Every structure is written in structure tokens, then in C-alpha cells.
């Protein structure tokens, strides 16, 4: 490669790694156009820009003239920067230094250099034009992703490190500096709606409450929507209509951190001080929207459900996570902080990310334990981050108490009013009767009045009973909802099982297709035929299991408990074998239970999956289940010799988001579902001293039956 600028006007540069493979992952990491733009904007920030201009030209449909240009007034890159950093993956040049040069002193936000692949998401041709202050020329490098595409499809394997990327120099003013990315052959169309979305997402880049200095301004232009987007400065909008706002601060001198606290007596949320937290001091602002506030907000913003969008974490004034990821459907949003997964218990009581706008401010300096994960979508799972998540959830739980209080209050007000009205009507009728008694001559005038009052009384009574029915109905719906939620949990497991089976079948079938007939492989063909058949049987079972969900209602029926338990365990034989788990099932008695099959399946599925997680990495793995009649009930003892439950946690284990198996993928809903299901069957579950003490866990489940 040329080393001195003087001897080059035009030449080529090569990637320092096999870019094709990396592109694949780049595409998976950067799944969305807005995320892609956001990544590039972060690079501008790191380069000490104070202004970034985003220009979209002719992108409403795909055509040769379409172009996205991102221009910043940052430091720019030298030839060596491009060669040694831009063309290398996973470069850690940014991490060696924490700050950008004065007067900016910005903490770098883009750490892994994935940003450049964001360009690939946006369009297939890129021209980088860049210049550092003091250099005479602008450097241009042209990267044509299409060329890689073409090569990757060629029969011969070509290493992309061998592909030339053209570069050249253009004369410039010595004081100019910055970088511009010209992306042409834009991959996707951008509609007005997309621009609005982009604007909304970009408005979150910089914290609205703790603005950065020197500033970082983004201007958005589209030649197709000049009225809305012509050098439009992107600014965070003020949060309006919230029903409550809470601000938490910290005190470095006294080492205290503000936390929220719900005062039961007054029904109000107050702020208290606690000691310093392991994750370091944080500043937080929460806006809570109760039902009325949400209605107002939605009326003002035309039901745009993405605006009240949960908690965001800013580091040193710049958004870190959730990472500018757009998902139009709120349920599909990534739940990094685990805010919505805790909803499953009390979907109607807990505060969800759709009722909260929260800004959590951290800094690299004061919160060094909170470190970005490489996928840019989360932080690395460490004790500090776990505690920070817990801290945020605890604050939300306090707000949940406020929510419950407000709702109970309004429910009580409504039902009190009904009761009062009922009593008042009664008094009214009594008063009329008294008047009738005293003045029988006006009885005929009072008659319609009395009739009306009685009608009203009937209506009110009807209202009261309807209200009670509605409450019962509500509880029933809650049960159905929870049952559906547990399905989500099976889905990925089932999909994985199906995929494993299918890929084995495919390989064996391909072998037979390619080699048959061949006397040498005769035995193999036979073996494969049997194995393919077996895999099919497994697949069939999995599908049956899924179908049982599609068809079944929440109806109760009589069933033989022994039969149900044995069949359920059969489903897991394969996975027990692969996990090396010894199973012992001993159901002595059989009774007819009036129950719902799905509820029972849920109970065992969750107990088993919990045990499997608790047994990971243990020796002589055992799961044991026995069943017997005990008085008027059927008792089930379910045990494993896994890691067991920590002392002091016995009460918490049935809580919805409590888990001791987070590393193994435990979301902390299993035992909650178990408990709610058992309660739906009017039974009980309790933790007993482990059969495998000092290891393991034993549950006793008691279900009533009719003789």
C-alpha cells in the first residue's frame, strides 16, 4: 500500500478481514434502517462533530438517483485511519482512549466498529469523503457492496480481502474537516412515515434533560418532503400530559441515592434516600401516565402507541439502550430491562413500558460497571447491571402501587356511589310512603313518582350485580391470558426440537438420495430408515402437543390423574436422555380429577423445565415424581437433586419474575404459572424439605378430587 500522500492520486484499498461473513452478521445485528442511521450518527458524535446533516434524495422509490448523505463537521479521517481502522473489524482504537479530544471530552459511544456495516443496510454503494483539518486534500474511497455480492455467488471461493476498493484525492481548503458518507443505490424506500419515525428516534439520541456541551445537532432534510424536512433541527419533544413525574438524584458527598417509596397512608409516592448502589449513582426521571393521562396523550398524538415507550438509558447524555430499534408493534419490542416480562402476574396491576417514559442517566466515569454488550442492544450481564435493572424495576413497582391505589380508589368511589344511590333511593321511597300515609289524598300524584323510584332502585341493584359479575369475568380473562403467555415459553423450545429433528431427517434423506442403491451402504440405509421414522414420531408428538393448545378451551373435565401424569412425562423422555437425567415416576393410586388438561400440562411442563435448569452442570441428575391419595386429596411430590433454593428465598420463588436459573434462561415465570394453575384447580403447592437434602428441591402439590 502507498504510504506517502504525495505519491498517490488514485489507488485501491483492501479490507483486512473477510468482509462477506461479517456482512451476514452485520445484517443480523443491524436489522432496521433507523438503527443503521443511528449507528452512523454515533460515529459522527465520536468524531467530535457539532453538526450532522442527514440528506435524503429521491428515496421514495428505489431508483438509480436515490441517495442518502450523512455529513458531519467532525475530525475526519486520515488515509491511515481508513486503512488501519475503517477497513478492520473489531478495531478497539476507540476503547484505548475513553475521551475524545478537548474541548469536547466526549465519552466514545461507538465501541466495536460495527457502525460501518450499517451503511450496507442502507444502500449498496458508498463513497466516503473525509478530511482532517490541516490536510490539503479530501480523501474519497468508494466501496461497492454489490461487487461482494457478485463474488459471493461465484462458484470459486474468493477472499474479500483480495477485492480492491478504489480511492482518490480531491483538492480542498486547509481548514476544512469532517466526513461525509454518500450512500447510493438505496436498498429500501423511505416514506414520509419513515422520516417521521426517524425523526422521533433521532430525537432520543441526546438526553432531553441533561444536554451535552459542546452541542450535537442533527439536521434532517428530504427533497421529497421539503415542507416537513428542510434542514430540520431534531429536538426532543417535551413530555406532556403525564399524570405524575418523579425525579431521582444522587449525592456524591453523602453517598446517597434517591429511591421511590409508596406511602400507604397518604396514597402518594415520595422520594427517600438510600445508600450508594453497587452500579454507581444514577439520575432518573419517570413520567407515569395513568388511564386518563394516556387518553389525553393518545388524543393529542393520534393514538401513536410508540410515543410512551418505556425506559431509556443515557450515558453521558447520549442514548445507549434500548438501542434505537424501531418496532411498530409494541409487543415485539425488545424488553431489555425486563420491564414487561414481570407483567405476567398482574398484567392489570403492574406498570408496563407503555405507561412510562423514563430517562436513566449514567456515566462511564461514575458507572464503570455498566458496559455495552457487543450486540449494541444491551449491557454485559454483570452484577452491576443486574442490580441496576432490579433498581429500575423496584422503582416501577412503587409506581405500580400508586396505580393500584388510584384504581382501587376509583373503583371504590364508583361502587360506593352505587351503594349510596341504592340507599338514598330506599330513603326516598320510604319518605314517599310516609307522605302517602300522612296525606292519603295525594297518593295518586305520588304513585308515578314511587313507581319511578322503584324502577331506579331495580336498575341500581342490577348495576351493582353487573359490576360484581364484571369483576369475576375479569379474573377469568386474566387466567386465560396467563395461560396463553406460557405458550410463548414453549414456542422456542418446540421450534428448536423441530429444527433439530428436521435437519437430521434432511441429512439422512439426502444421503439416501445421493447414494442409493449401493450395496456397501445397505445397512446404513436401513438404519437411516428407522431413524427417520423415529424422528418423525418425535415430530408428530411435538405437533400434537402444540395442537392441544390450539384446540383446547379452558373447560374442565373428568380425567384419570395417573394416566395424565404418565403421558406428560413421556413427552420429556427424549430431553431427559439428552440431558442425562434419571427419571423416576411412581403414581401409586389413581383417582378421577375434575380438572383442565392444559392446566395440568402447564404445571408439569414448568416444574420439569425448572428442574432441568436447576440440574444443569450437576452430577447424577435425578427427577422424581410420586403420587398418592391423602385423605380427600391427591398429593404429588415432585423433586430434583439440582442446585436447590437458597435459604430465605422460599417465599419469593412463586413470584413472577423471581428466578434462580437466569443463566439457564429462566425468566422466573415457571413457578408462578405452576402456582396459579394449581390455584385454578383449587389446590395448593408448597416447598418441602428436599428429598435429596442437602441438595435439590421438593414440592408438594395437593389437589382436591371427587370420589
Amino acid at each position, binding site marked *: 500500500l502507498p504510504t506517502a500522500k504525495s505519491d498517490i492520486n488514485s489507488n485501491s484499498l483492501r479490507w483486512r478481514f473477510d468482509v462477506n*461473513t461479517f456482512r*451476514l*452478521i452485520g445484517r443480523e445485528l443491524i436489522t432496521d434502517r433507523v438503527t443503521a442511521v443511528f449507528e452512523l450518527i454515533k460515529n459522527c458524535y465520536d468524531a467530535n462533530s457539532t453538526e450532522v446533516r442527514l440528506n435524503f434524495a429521491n428515496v421514495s422509490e428505489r431508483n438509480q438517483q436515490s441517495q442518502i448523505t450523512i455529513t458531519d463537521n467532525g475530525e475526519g479521517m486520515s488515509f491511515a485511519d481508513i486503512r488501519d481502522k475503517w477497513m478492520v473489524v*473489531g478495531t478497539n482504537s476507540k476503547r484505548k482512549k475513553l475521551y475524545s479530544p478537548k474541548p469536547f471530552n466526549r465519552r466514545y459511544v461507538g465501541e466495536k466498529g460495527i457502525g460501518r456495516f450499517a451503511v450496507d443496510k442502507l444502500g449498496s454503494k458508498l463513497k466516503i469523503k473525509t478530511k482532517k483539518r490541516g490536510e490539503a486534500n479530501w480523501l474519497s474511497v468508494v466501496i461497492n457492496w454489490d461487487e461482494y455480492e457478485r463474488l459471493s455467488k461465484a462458484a470459486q471461493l474468493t477472499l474479500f480481502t483480495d477485492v480492491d476498493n478504489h480511492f482518490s484525492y480531491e483538492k480542498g481548503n486547509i481548514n476544512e474537516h469532517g466526513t461525509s458518507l454518500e450512500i447510493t443505490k438505496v436498498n429500501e424506500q423511505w416514506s414520509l412515515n419513515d422520516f417521521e419515525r426517524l425523526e422521533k428516534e433521532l430525537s432520543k439520541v441526546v438526553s432531553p434533560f441533561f444536554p451535552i456541551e459542546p452541542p450535537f445537532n442533527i439536521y434532517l432534510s428530504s427533497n421529497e418532503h421539503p415542507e416537513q424536512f428542510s434542514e430540520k433541527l431534531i429536538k426532543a419533544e417535551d413530555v406532556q400530559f403525564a399524570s405524575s413525574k418523579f425525579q431521582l438524584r444522587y449525592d456524591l458527598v453523602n453517598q446517597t441515592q434517591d429511591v421511590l417509596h409508596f406511602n400507604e397512608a397518604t396514597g402518594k409516592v415520595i422520594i427517600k434516600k438510600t445508600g450508594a448502589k453497587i452500579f454507581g449513582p444514577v439520575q432518573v426521571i419517570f413520567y407515569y401516565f395513568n388511564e386518563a393521562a394516556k387518553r389525553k396523550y393518545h388524543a393529542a398524538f393520534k393514538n401513536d402507541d410508540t410515543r410512551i415507550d418505556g425506559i431509556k438509558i443515557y450515558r453521558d447524555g447520549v442514548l445507549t439502550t434500548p438501542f434505537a430499534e424501531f418496532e411498530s408493534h409494541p409487543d415485539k419490542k425488545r424488553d431489555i430491562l425486563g420491564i414487561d416480562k414481570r407483567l405476567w402476574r398482574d398484567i392489570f396491576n403492574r406498570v408496563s413500558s407503555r405507561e412510562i417514559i423514563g430517562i436513566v442517566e449514567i456515566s462511564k466515569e461514575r458507572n464503570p460497571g455498566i458496559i455495552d454488550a457487543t450486540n449494541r442492544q444491551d449491557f454485559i450481564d454483570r452484577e452491576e447491571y443486574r442490580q441496576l435493572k432490579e433498581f429500575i424495576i423496584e422503582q416501577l413497582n412503587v409506581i405500580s402501587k400508586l396505580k393500584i391505589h388510584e384504581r382501587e380508589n376509583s373503583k371504590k368511589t364508583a361502587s360506593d356511589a352505587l351503594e349510596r344511590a341504592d340507599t338514598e333511593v330506599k330513603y326516598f321511597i320510604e319518605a314517599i310512603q310516609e307522605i302517602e300515609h300522612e296525606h292519603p289524598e295525594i297518593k295518586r300524584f305520588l304513585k308515578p313518582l314511587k313507581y319511578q323510584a322503584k324502577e331506579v332502585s331495580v336498575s341500581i341493584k342490577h348495576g351493582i350485580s353487573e359490576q360484581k359479575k364484571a369483576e369475576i369475568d375479569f379474573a377469568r380473562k386474566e387466567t386465560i391470558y396467563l395461560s396463553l403467555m406460557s405458550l410463548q415459553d414453549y414456542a422456542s423450545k418446540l421450534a428448536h426440537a423441530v429444527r433439530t429433528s428436521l435437519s437430521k431427517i434432511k*441429512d439422512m434423506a439426502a444421503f439416501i438420495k445421493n447414494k442409493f442403491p449401493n450395496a456397501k451402504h445397505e445397512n446404513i440405509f436401513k438404519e437411516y430408515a428407522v431413524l427417520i421414522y423415529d424422528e418423525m414420531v418425535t415430530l408428530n408428538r411435538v405437533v400434537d402437543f402444540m395442537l392441544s393448545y390450539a384446540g383446547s378451551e379452558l373447560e374442565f373435565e373428568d380425567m384419570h390423574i395417573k394416566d395424565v401424569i404418565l403421558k406428560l412425562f413421556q413427552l420429556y423422555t427424549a430431553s431427559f436422555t439428552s440431558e442425562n437425567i434419571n427419571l423416576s415416576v411412581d403414581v401409586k393410586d389413581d383417582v378421577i380429577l375434575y380438572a383442565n388438561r392444559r392446566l395440568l400440562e402447564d404445571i408439569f411442563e414448568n416444574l420439569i423445565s425448572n428442574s432441568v435448569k436447576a440440574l444443569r452442570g450437576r452430577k447424577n441428575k435425578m427427577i422424581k415424581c410420586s403420587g398418592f391419595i391423602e385423605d380427600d386429596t391427591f398429593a404429588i411430590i415432585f423433586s430434583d437433586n439440582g442446585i436447590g433454593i437458597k435459604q430465605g428465598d422460599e417465599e419469593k420463588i412463586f413470584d413472577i419474575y423471581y428466578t434462580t436459573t437466569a443463566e*439457564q434462561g429462566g425468566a422466573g415465570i415457571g413457578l408462578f404459572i405452576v402456582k396459579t394453575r394449581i390455584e385454578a384447580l383449587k389446590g395448593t403447592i408448597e416447598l418441602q424439605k428436599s428429598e435429596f437434602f442437602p441438595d435439590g428441591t421438593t414440592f408438594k402439590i395437593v389437589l382436591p378430587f371427587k370420589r
Partner: protein
Amino acid sequence: MSMVSPHIVIIHDDWNENYPLVLELREKYGDDNVKFLKHSQAGIDYLMQAPTQKTIVVLDYNFKTGEPTGGDVFKKIRQKSSLVYVIIVTKSRPKDISPDDFIEFVNNHALAIAQPSGDYTEISRLVEIAIQQLEMRADVILEEWIVEKSAEDREKPFMALADKRIYTLNEILENIRQKTPLGDEITKDILGLAIDLVLKKMNTGNA
């Protein structure tokens, strides 16, 4: 120079000795040249003691919890030598591969990541490409040439390099395997020399 047969190691816990890919590769490259291992730890143990020249590893990414992951095995292999070709086999979608592992694969030249969409013939084809590349790589040929020397010869001072130090063949081998700047330099120099010699030969031949 005699050609060493490629050595293929398959580590996959959903497969067995009779799995289509194992049979296919044994048919193509000989029973002795294809080793199948079901557990990732066994794979690491095997690779750590086996000679690494001209080795291709077909490696599962999704091992059961508790066992070393595909990423762990890969790192171990790379600690020993960067001349081994590794083909990663995964049931996961790319985004389910841990990005740290992915960057590790890319920066340390995993040859390919085989997706579940294809069948065993696709992996077989990748093995073929790996073998072709191994046979053409100057560093691999150098390794093969050095390994063939006797242990005694390998310990003798062999050549002085740019830093004026005299290196034994074993030291040179180590540098080539670890892909140190020195190792790369030697490879390049020898390749340059070889091209020179070939060209001279051609010129003389033409004359």
C-alpha cells in the same frame, strides 16, 4: 515434497459415527483421516494432543449447557495454531450466535459458518474448499515441510532473520502457527523466493 493427507475432526453432539457427513467424509478421505467426537471437551482434549498440520475441524456451535461451547473450542484451537481450518455448524440463526463469538470467528478466520438450511453435502463441499486452500497456502506448506524434518534437525539453528537472531526450525514453526509478524514475514519471504526461483526456471527453460 510428499503430500500429507488432510485430517478432518468432526465435533457434534447431535451426530454419531454413522451420521451422513461422517460417512461421506470417510468415503472421500479415508477412515483413518476422519475423527468423530461427540463431546466438545473430548474434542478439545483430542485437538490439543494431535498434530495440527493440515487439519480441518467441523465444529458444532450449539453444545448442551455445561459443556464448552463451540466458541470455547474455537478459541482453544486458535491458541494452538491458526493454520487449522474450522467450519462452524449451527442450528441457530446468525443472530443467535453470540456476537463476541462471531467476531472471534471472523477475526480468526473460521472458514465458514454452515447454516441449517443446507444438508450435509454443503458441509462436505466446504471441507473440500478448505483442503484446496490448505494445499495452496504457503504457511501450511512450510509447516508441512518443517514437521517432516527430524526432531533433532528442527532444534538446530536454521536461519538468521531480519532481527539478526538465529532461529531454529521449531521456533520458525511456532511463529508461523501463531501468525506473528515474524511468522508472516518468513512466509512472505519464502513465497517471494519461491516465485523468483520458479520464474527463473521458466526463463531458463524458455531460453
